[in-house]
């Protein structure tokens, strides 16, 4: 199948290893991945920060960039969620009715990674090998906006060598919330410290999630706490195979 990658501006600029892992995984499963080069940012930050008017050109650019794509995958529940649940609403509220209709059609072809794998491609065992003790943080937008439910956990349970340990109070937010982390930094930090405590209590060597943004936040907290736990995106785990030397994939070293 031909699948267009919505890399997300964050993964593109800050965590390219997540986008690379997504490509590697889908190609290994026999699909053709494209990267529509006109993509930039979905506009979620502007929408959620109270600038829906300024988000319109971002939505327009996004809709145009993916106009030819039959199927779009994002390694981010948050960005897929914005495309699916916000774009058309914002465009309509700003009086851009034609754009809203196009956005609605694109929303119907846009999937978060675990949704694409389980629902569209019908695969739960991607043939991955990741010999580590991992705990999984279900991000808020995967859980409560896209309702991906057990899909990521089902995929992880089929990864060879992976020991999945349950995260206490897993469904509670990590405190990121986009600009919330800066505007309400102290509250965000307080929520984060409880999440870090929960992660450390699992004894896992890695904390996985479906959103690079939340992982950046959690990873920043783990790093500040001096914890010997790393963060890893779901795509990175699923892209790993036994042929990778240490279970980490070639693309992850981008520093």
């Amino acid at each position, binding site marked *: 199948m031909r699948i267009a990658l919505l890399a997300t501006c964050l993964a593109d600029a800050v965590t390219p290893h997540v986008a690379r892992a997504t490509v590697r995984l889908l190609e290994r499963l026999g699909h053709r991945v494209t990267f529509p080069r006109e993509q930039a940012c979905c506009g979620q930050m502007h929408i*959620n920060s109270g600038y829906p008017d300024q988000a319109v050109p971002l939505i327009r650019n996004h809709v145009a960039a993916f106009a030819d794509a039959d199927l779009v995958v994002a390694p981010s529940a948050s960005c897929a969620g914005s495309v699916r649940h916000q774009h058309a609403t914002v465009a309509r509220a700003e009086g851009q009715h034609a754009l809203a209709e196009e956005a609605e059609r694109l929303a119907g072809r846009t999937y978060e990674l675990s949704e694409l794998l389980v629902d569209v491609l019908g695969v739960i065992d991607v043939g991955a090998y990741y010999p580590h003790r991992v705990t999984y943080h279900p991000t808020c937008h995967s859980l409560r906006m896209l309702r991906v439910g057990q899909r990521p956990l089902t995929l992880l349970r089929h990864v060879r060598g992976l020991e999945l340990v349950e995260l206490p109070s897993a469904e509670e937010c990590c405190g990121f919330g986009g600009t919330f982390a800066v505007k309400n930094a102290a509250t965000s930090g307080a929520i984060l410290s409880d999440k870090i405590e929960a992660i450390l209590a699992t004894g896992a060597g890695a904390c996985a999630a479906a959103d690079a943004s939340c992982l950046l936040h959690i990873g920043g907290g783990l790093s500040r706490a001096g914890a010997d736990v790393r963060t890893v995106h779901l795509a990175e785990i699923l892209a790993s195979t036994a042929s990778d030397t240490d279970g980490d994939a070639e693309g992850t070293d981008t520093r």
Partner: protein
Amino acid sequence: MSSTFLGMPGTAGSGNLRGDRPFPEAAAGALGDEQLRRNLAHATGTIRAKRATVVGELDDWEQLRDAGSAIKIDAMARLPELLERLEREVTTRGGVVHWARDADEANRIVTRLVTDTGQREVVKVKSMATQEIGLNEALEAAGITATETDLAELIVQLDDDRPSHILVPAIHRNRQEIAEIFRTRMRDAQGRVPGGIDNLTDDPAALAEAARRYLREKFLSTRVAVSGANFAVAETGTLCVVESEGNGRMCVTLPDTLITVMGIEKVIPSWRDLEVFLQLLPRSSTGERMNPYTSLWTGVHAASASGPAGSGETGGDTDGPREFHLVLLDNGRTAALSDPVGRPALHCIRCSACLNACPVYSRTGGHAYGSTYPGPIGAILSPLLTGISGPDDPNASLPFASTLCGACYDVCPVKIDIPSILVHLRGRAMREGRRGERAVMRLLAWVLSSARRFGAAERLMPVGRLLARDGRIRRLPPPLSGWTDHRDLPAPPRRSFRRLWARRRAR
């Protein structure tokens, strides 16, 4: 969501709907108080677990939520008709209906009604509407003493404090603190700690006993009561209060005069609708299948005119007030109704499930929100009722006091999409927002709306590596210091994915 024209962008809500500082500033104190954070985490965690258990028992919970939401949408769409029906039914049954545009008008009406009885004391049923308008302070200014009879409200009142939770107003206090408040502040008519308990301990039973003695004296001697209402059934003019302690029942049955202050959004069409909410509310609020006391009253009891209420004289029904006044309060509700996106905030039945579920509320507590209505619902309701006057309005900060995690929406018994309304109100707040921030966001929008410009910006990012040591950035200048105050940032990569992809294609 209906975009039908409803309501009028009229009188803004006043009273206790706005704090004096923006949320981040107001939250700082609570975040630094370890004891408070432990109290809050324990209390919210306990109620959350109880709620989840009893909600899980019902197979038709989602259908009940849909029904609750549908009833409220219908009621809001024909509010004028329902309120006039309510007025007619209440009046027919001997009650008197008053209409109050805002907090001041409501306070004036209630103060006059109490003054007309010649009494200087009132007992109060726990009520959010009267907290909202600051009724106790208004009565005090007129020389009338109001006594809160809900245990937690009483604790807060004795301590000259403010409630911090819709359902559990003293959630920020532990029992040692409560014992201290009782010892130093609670006095009976003889000026003693009630019941002569000198060495009041923090034993919950002893605390409850002291409160019981204190309140009983008030119930038996006070002739006027003030209540709020959880629901008003338009078809019969019936008011409803649900509670746990029975103090509300005492207030609505013992005194001669009952004055009920109710937000206009509390009206529901019929008794059949009440059935839905009496299932939704207790499970969502206290995590109980049914609340211990549901009081319903309709007008006044004609027969009770034969003898003073509660006097025990024969000759008819002596329960219930001889005089009943219903004050219908707008205070910004009509303005909220005129916002088609924000409108569902008026569906709220004050269960407070969203407070307990909220990662922000459970860390900061309620006082940080400034308003009578804290938590996620307060973060939308307060600015909707008051309007947002400009960037320095403390209520402009409330829609940003959320991570948009969606936990509030999931637990809401009437399915208010709080995250979407928060995002909508952020837009309203920023329309009146700061020019500097708007300009920065505009620049970012320009960069982020084009692959060419974004790609060019990405090429500059590796410069950020100069700030990093051992692959991480530990300190950034404001406003990004908000991030690095609490967490590290990884050094930016040498190459963006976009460039890696272009190279791969070139190979």
